[in-house]
């Protein structure tokens, strides 16, 4: 038997291994979650919602073009989730399961999600296989609470399903696969009009279903956001994040930013009072602060929920505001301290004479403070709080 070195499955094995390496929270901060950029499903949502591109969208566009030329190109050559599903399906306890008994949701999910995105709500973006895959690997970054681990168990659950229903994800649910099928259909249509070839039976009768799916998509895109009430919750997000209402729905919970943050101040939100923001990245300043020479979180976000920003721009991007509670401040107790002023890299804290305290005290300049949290971290009596910028009217 002739052995092929470059069969599609072997390429996919290498690709999957690479995907795992980049998905793990290792030392290449700027390349964390590289494979999220290859998903055309995420790319299209990002472009439709934000109406803009970044340079890192280029790999996704290449994949888009390839999947237009070749049927399900991404699934065949790159997808680590597909590889895992196929691998598990081999050991399925119901190997003779007839997949045709399951209706095909993938194209419907894809088109409904994209149409809803055009109306402002990326409906099924969380079902993107790359999002599930990268979310799962963030469990390995530091000590995660139980609920975070449960929330990111999408990939193992998916693989476990394949023990019972082999092949169901890729062929029937995966919206990324469905998107590629839609492109395949479009190609068929173009071919048909050009060469009058016989219509492919595979897509017969799907037009009506897709019409209904897009109708549902536009309706949900227009209606659902009203009931989310996300803007009533203010959180400290990574710098250059979108407003909360858009952030919560566009964020795919891939946790690339959590893995990329060199000081590990970004964590997954576990506030149960706001389920829409569940597992979105939030910033906390208990142990460290947002470094003045770092923009990794913006660089690794594949959806643009955190927009890329330059180091120079960072001193203008407000993520929070520092509030000094003078009751516990060492300076107002006449102790020797100027730690907050020294820690501030943006020259936002001055130590001035406060007449009402009859003492020197730190005064925060809200125009200069970007909320990096350095002062809150260094403050010896922990008397500086960081608050979301909206709270005082920004």
């Amino acid at each position, binding site marked *: 038997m002739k052995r092929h070195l470059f069969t599609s499955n072997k390429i996919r094995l290498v690709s999957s291994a690479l995907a795992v390496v980049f998905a793990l929270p290792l030392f290449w901060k700027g390349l964390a979650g590289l494979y999220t950029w290859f998903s055309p499903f995420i790319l299209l949502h990002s472009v439709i919602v934000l109406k803009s591109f970044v340079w890192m969208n280029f790999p996704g566009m290449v994949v888009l073009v390839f999947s237009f030329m070749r049927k399900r190109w991404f699934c065949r050559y790159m997808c680590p989730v597909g590889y895992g599903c196929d691998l598990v399906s081999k050991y399925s306890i119901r190997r003779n399961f007839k997949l045709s008994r399951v209706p095909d949701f993938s194209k419907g999910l894809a088109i409904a999600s994209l149409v809803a995105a055009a109306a402002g709500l990326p409906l099924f973006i969380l079902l993107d296989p790359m999002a599930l895959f990268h979310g799962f690997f963030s469990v390995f970054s530091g000590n995660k609470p139980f609920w975070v681990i449960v929330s990111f168990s999408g990939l193992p659950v998916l693989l476990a399903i394949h023990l019972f229903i082999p092949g169901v994800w890729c062929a029937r649910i995966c919206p990324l696969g469905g998107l590629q099928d839609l492109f395949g259909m479009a190609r068929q249509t173009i071919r048909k009009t050009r060469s009058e070839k016989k219509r492919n039976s595979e897509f017969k009768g799907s037009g009506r279903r897709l019409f209904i799916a897009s109708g549902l998509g536009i309706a949900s895109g227009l209606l659902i956001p009203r009931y989310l009430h996300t803007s009533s919750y203010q959180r400290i997000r990574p710098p250059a994040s979108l407003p909360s209402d858009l952030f919560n729905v566009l964020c795919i919970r891939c946790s690339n930013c959590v893995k990329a943050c*060199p*000081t590990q101040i970004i964590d997954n939100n576990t506030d149960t009072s706001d389920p829409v923001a569940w597992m979105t990245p939030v910033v906390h300043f208990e*142990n*460290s*602060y947002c*470094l003045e020479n770092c923009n990794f979180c913006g660089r690794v976000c594949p959806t643009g929920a955190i927009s890329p920003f330059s180091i120079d721009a960072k001193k203008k991007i407000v993520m929070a505001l520092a509030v000094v509670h003078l009751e516990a401040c060492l*300076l107002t*107790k*006449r*102790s*020797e*301290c*100027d*730690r907050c*002023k*020294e*820690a501030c890299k943006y020259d936002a804290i*001055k*130590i*001035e*004479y406060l007449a009402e305290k*009859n*003492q*020197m005290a730190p005064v925060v300049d809200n125009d200069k403070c970007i909320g990096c949290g*350095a002062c809150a*971290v*260094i*403050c*010896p009596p922990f008397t500086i709080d960081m608050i979301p910028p909206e709270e005082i009217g920004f």
Partner: protein
Amino acid sequence: MQRRNFLTRLMLAGGAFTLGPACGRRINLEQTESSEANGDLSLITGNRITEPERQIPVLAETDVLVIGGGPSGAAAAIAASRTGAETWLVERYNHLGGLWTGGLVLPLLSTHGVDKENNRRQVIHGIGGEMSQRLKAVGMSIDEINPVIDPEAAKYVIEEMAREAGVKVLYHTWCANVIMDGPTIQGIFVENKSGRMALLAKVVIDCTGDGDIFHWAGDSYDLMKYHIGLVHRLGNVDRIDTGKPGYQPMSLGEPTPVPGVGWVNMRGKDDQNGVDALTLSELQTEYRLKIWEDVQKIRQTPGHEKVFLLDTASQLGVRVSRILEGEYRLSLEDSMTYKSFDDVIGICGAWTTMLYKGKRVAPAQRPMWQIPYRSLLPKKTENLLVAGRCFSYERDLVEDGRIIGTALITGHGAGAAAGLAIKERESVKNIDADKLKKLLKAQGAWLG
């Protein structure tokens, strides 16, 4: 007419004749201008005056000359004198200990640091440690870590140690200028009630705190503007009647070894130039008035009638001014990474919270850090050593470079090095690091 009378009248007339021109003598413009050549009179051009040339008496020729009697200067003079070198110490006030005693900066900061095994241990030994122990022995020191001492006791203890070591202390004397010969300091001009005089020395140690000597000698430095305050002490802080109607708790400072006395720190204004006389004078006036008013407010609060202003510091609390750019500049990085040096002269602790690599490092976690001999050496001047808050470090280390403990350690190192240089007949730049370490250990210093 007699011949005698005629002669008398003739002489009188002659005298009267010469009197006229003599009375008309005055200094003309041309004469003043030409005086530049002979140097008789001051030349005033604009707002500058050329000082006339004059002969200055030499008070002494000595081996080691220490300028400034603060913690570093006292430690340096004692260390040098103990090696057998003749040592003179010039001090502008009437006591030793500088800001530690007269300046009322009472806590001996950073006696402790964390070693590599993560134990917080004492680092201040040697002459500084001896001072600390003697203060404890006379019962004028409270707390084990970063002890607060009594200023009068510390003045006595340091004086006693200096006397025992045989240091020749010149009080009430301000150092006025350096006497240079190329890159070598021949001696120092000083001024006091006896006028201007010169002290010649083989090695000079700059313990002025403001780096006056290396400034005049032409070495490069970093002038840092920082907070300047004025510390004061309150008396009767234990005689508060809390039961009095209208009583309110007031801030009465930190406890001191003397019961009933509280010491009150003042952070003071930021961005002040500590080597500008007008700034210092303005701040002095402002702070004195403010302290008095603050104490009056305390006294007017019911229950606090017996509290009184015990004293204000004899000098302003200039935290840092000139920082030498020496052979080696210590940085925060060095202090956080246990950087070890072949020419270590002492080990310091740390007292304040820092950010390092994005993380908070609390005082009890701060590593101890080594001071290399090179950080006491100016780049240009040959026979000068620098100790105290003006030795060579980066601005990010200022909080730990400017404090009493570091001054004691650098002072001891500089004094021992000067003594060794005299003994070995060697330049301070060329002395053997191993011999210096051996000498320091023999003097009780701890080098890790």
